[in-house]
């Protein structure tokens, strides 16, 4: 690029940044801060055997002077033959930005997890009153989105316990104090609340093992892993504890041509792990995030400054692969495939790729959501696509294309990513109409989050520039066509009638008590709201310590739309003793249930369920009889979905009490509160005890979670 062209482009960039209300110092420059791929650990011969150590480390990818805080993240290496430490240097990963586990369908993933995390000041933890052991910083792992069994431990002490993707366990640092040995420094009375709790793992190695086997039919795509101890999940993820997982090869579902003679190579795939960290003045990370950290303050590249009232001198960093405002060179003529993972604890992103020359968004071609390729038949109408994609994407034109597409290309000018979501998108230079064209000399763009307000009672997630993007100019791409999504897309998986058949399920005696299948034609209704508890010190939906609390309520609805007597459970905080139990179908076949998700809060929630994925279904279909895979939105399979917030009417709790941030179930039933239900069909195929919850982890830690158990059938 010549100097004059550079200057002109820079001037244009700065003026556009000013127009967006943000300051861009270095957009459109070729920077030494080029985005690096996360370190990869790939399986060999069907096995990936790793040592993962959770420990403190320096966050060294920030470019704002004076900021290199100590976070918590993972050291990862191939499992050594002896010992429980990773050798320094090549072969080990120790990066705030994260890592990638590259698996194939049918693989076995073995992990030894070590907890070397520090103790925490109890006063720094929001949920310390519910669980004083949180100050000991227990941890575990969840392989988010993988459809694998939630196997519990079967190994007695003194051997190290072994789990599948099971999160109802907590690993303590042996050197950090016995979880039950020194209650004096916490609230001894609080132990009375812990008599029903998860596994407590405490051994000389501070270790637990995982052995997770992927089915051979597992979808190929993007997944991730993170800690999941209730009450402290937000803190640990906000400090950096997350990595990503890829399954299969992109060529198995993405090609440049209809016949797939020209599959997309792995070298065209870029992984972008989005994380955020709030750092106080003095370079001190904040364990408990505050969504209003930057309210009223300015934002620029990869950071916004703390509001002067509460966080003067602090900064809130938004990184890609641990790097603050890196540069991404898009050098392939046919563009790249970007796999985004929102690995933030609570922050939501509204991603845009803004052409610095025009100020208009460059459309992304949508490839996959939550690890499954999207699959809308060509000619799918807007109602079908937008019905499935609403609240997650702003659908845009893909321009003109030639030839036949088995599945319709879908493009989006905006991608909303609530916590935990993954999106794969094809990125190439496009004109304002969405056509793939040769990028002009010096073409550049800014990857940014445009900010997202999650509702009247919600959070104002800030607008921040995330990365500079440079397009290499040259002749028009050879194909100049959208890429083709092929086999393994959601529609193909759904048409097979099940996601994955249960593994290893053998008949067991008839389940006792409440472990019964949902009667034919019935569905579950789940309420998302802020529960009211005695002693609330700051209005409805708060606890005695002034914290906002969150919960779920339940009801079984019959084929006529009536509540089944005795099935209603009002909204309450997470209680591990309360379990929804269901058996597999006869012959250990998958069970398909319909759930109606009703958000009564005045903010968005983000439903997520472990060990499976779900598709949208129309209310008419859902109420017409037993669930089938005949859905109205066959194009996507998700494991998380935003739930629209409620609109309180006269006489409802939020109208009567302005401090309240959710309606009551009685408000909803009496018509005082309008809520838009999200209807989903969920195939249950994996055995074990697992959870569903809101993946805004402030809400999950605050109680918006529930246990579900799937057991073998008796026949």
């Amino acid at each position: 690029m010549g100097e004059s062209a550079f200057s002109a482009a820079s001037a244009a960039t700065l003026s556009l940044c000013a127009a967006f209300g943000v300051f861009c110092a270095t957009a459109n420059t070729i920077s030494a801060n080029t985005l690096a791929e996360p370190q990869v650990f790939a399986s060999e011969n069907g096995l990936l055997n790793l040592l993962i150590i959770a420990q403190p480390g320096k966050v060294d990818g920030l470019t704002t002077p004076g900021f290199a805080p100590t976070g918590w993240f993972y050291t990862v290496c191939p499992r050594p033959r002896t010992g429980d430490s990773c050798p320094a240097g090549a072969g080990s990963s120790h990066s705030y930005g994260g890592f990638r586990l590259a698996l194939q369908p049918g693989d076995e993933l073995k992990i030894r997890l070590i907890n070397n995390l520090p103790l925490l000041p109890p006063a720094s933890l929001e949920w310390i009153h519910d669980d004083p052991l949180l100050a000991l910083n227990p941890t575990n792992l969840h392989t988010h989105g993988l459809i694998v069994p939630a196997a519990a431990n079967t190994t007695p002490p003194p051997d190290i316990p072994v789990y599948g993707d099971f999160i109802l366990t907590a690993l303590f640092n042996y050197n950090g104090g016995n979880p039950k040995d020194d209650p004096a420094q916490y609230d001894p009375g609080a132990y009375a609340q812990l008599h029903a709790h998860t596994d407590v793992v405490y051994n000389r190695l501070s270790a637990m093992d995982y052995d997770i086997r992927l089915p051979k039919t597992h979808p190929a795509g993007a997944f991730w892993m993170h800690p999941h101890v209730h009450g402290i999940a937000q803190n640990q993820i906000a400090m950096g504890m997350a990595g990503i997982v890829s399954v299969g090869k992109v060529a198995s579902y993405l090609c440049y041509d209809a016949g797939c003679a020209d599959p997309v190579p792995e070298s065209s795939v870029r992984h972008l792990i989005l994380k955020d960290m709030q750092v106080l003045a003095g370079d001190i990370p904040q364990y408990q995030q505050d969504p209003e950290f930057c309210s009223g303050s300015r934002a620029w590249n990869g950071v916004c400054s703390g509001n002067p009232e509460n966080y003067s001198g602090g900064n809130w960093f938004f990184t890609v692969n641990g790097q603050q405002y890196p540069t991404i060179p898009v050098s392939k003529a046919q563009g790249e495939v970007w796999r985004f993972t929102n690995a933030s604890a609570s922050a939501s992103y509204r991603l845009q790729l803004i052409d610095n020359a025009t100020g208009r968004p460059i459309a992304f071609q949508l490839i996959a959501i939550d690890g499954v390729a999207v699959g809308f038949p060509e000619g799918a109408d807007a109602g079908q696509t937008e019905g499935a994609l609403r609240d997650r994407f702003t659908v845009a034109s893909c321009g003109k294309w030639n030839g036949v597409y088995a599945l319709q290309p879908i493009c989006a000018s905006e991608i909303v990513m609530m916590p935990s979501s993954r999106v794969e998108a094809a990125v190439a230079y496009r004109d304002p109409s969405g056509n793939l064209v040769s990028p002009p000399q010096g073409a550049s763009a800014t990857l940014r989050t445009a900010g997202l307000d999650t509702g009247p009672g919600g959070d104002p997630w800030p607008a921040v520039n995330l990365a500079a993007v440079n397009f290499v100019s040259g002749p028009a791409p050879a194909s100049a066509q959208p890429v083709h999504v092929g086999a393994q897309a959601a529609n193909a998986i759904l048409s097979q009638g099940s996601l994955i058949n249960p593994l290893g399920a053998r008949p067991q005696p008839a389940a006792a008590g409440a472990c019964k299948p949902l009667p034919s034609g019935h569905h579950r209704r789940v309420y998302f709201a802020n529960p009211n508890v005695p002693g609330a010190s700051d209005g409805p939906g708060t606890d005695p310590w002034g914290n906002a609390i969150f919960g779920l309520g339940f009801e079984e609805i019959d084929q006529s739309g009536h509540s089944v007597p005795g099935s209603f459970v009002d909204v309450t905080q997470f209680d591990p003793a309360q379990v929804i139990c269901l058996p597999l179908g006869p012959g250990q076949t998958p069970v398909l249930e319909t759930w109606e998700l009703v958000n009564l809060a005045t903010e968005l929630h983000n439903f997520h369920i472990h060990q499976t994925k779900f598709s949208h279904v129309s209310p008419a279909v859902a109420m017409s009889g037993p669930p089938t895979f005949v859905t109205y939105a066959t194009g996507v399979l998700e494991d998380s979905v935003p739930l629209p917030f409620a609109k309180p009417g006269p006489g409802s709790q939020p109208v009567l009490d302005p401090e309240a941030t959710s309606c009551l179930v009685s408000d909803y039933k009496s018509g005082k509160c309008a809520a838009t239900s999200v209807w989903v069909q969920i195939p249950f195929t994996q055995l074990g005890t697992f959870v569903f919850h809101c993946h805004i982890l402030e809400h999950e830690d605050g109680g918006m979670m529930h246990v579900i158990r799937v057991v073998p059938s008796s026949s």
Partner: protein
Amino acid sequence: MRLATLRLAADRLRRGVLAAGAFVMVVAAAAFLAHLPPDRGAATGNERAAPSVADVQAAYDRAALSADGLHDGDIRIVGVDCRPGTGMRFSCQVGFVKSEFDPARVFLDTALVERTPKGWTLARGLCRRLI
């Protein structure tokens, strides 16, 4: 062979003999300890011996009988790993099974057990388990 090399070789040999001697003593001590009678809770002069599975099971059963509603009655302990704590207390990783669940499922908890003149007692942990 140079003199310095010879000295180094002699030093290694001496260290090797010492290490071998130490190893023999440790093995002998371990063999001696292995033949001591198992501790069953009473103060027999071996107060720092860690509690066994049977000791922790007995302590748990006594606590469950107190009927405070916090302990289930069907816990069968299948493994313990204890280390000394303060005084006569031991902190233990305890594995147990429950009759209402798959017997292969081993639940894990920590417990503080204390040696008293009446035997081992459960000071904390091993409470009702429902997951």
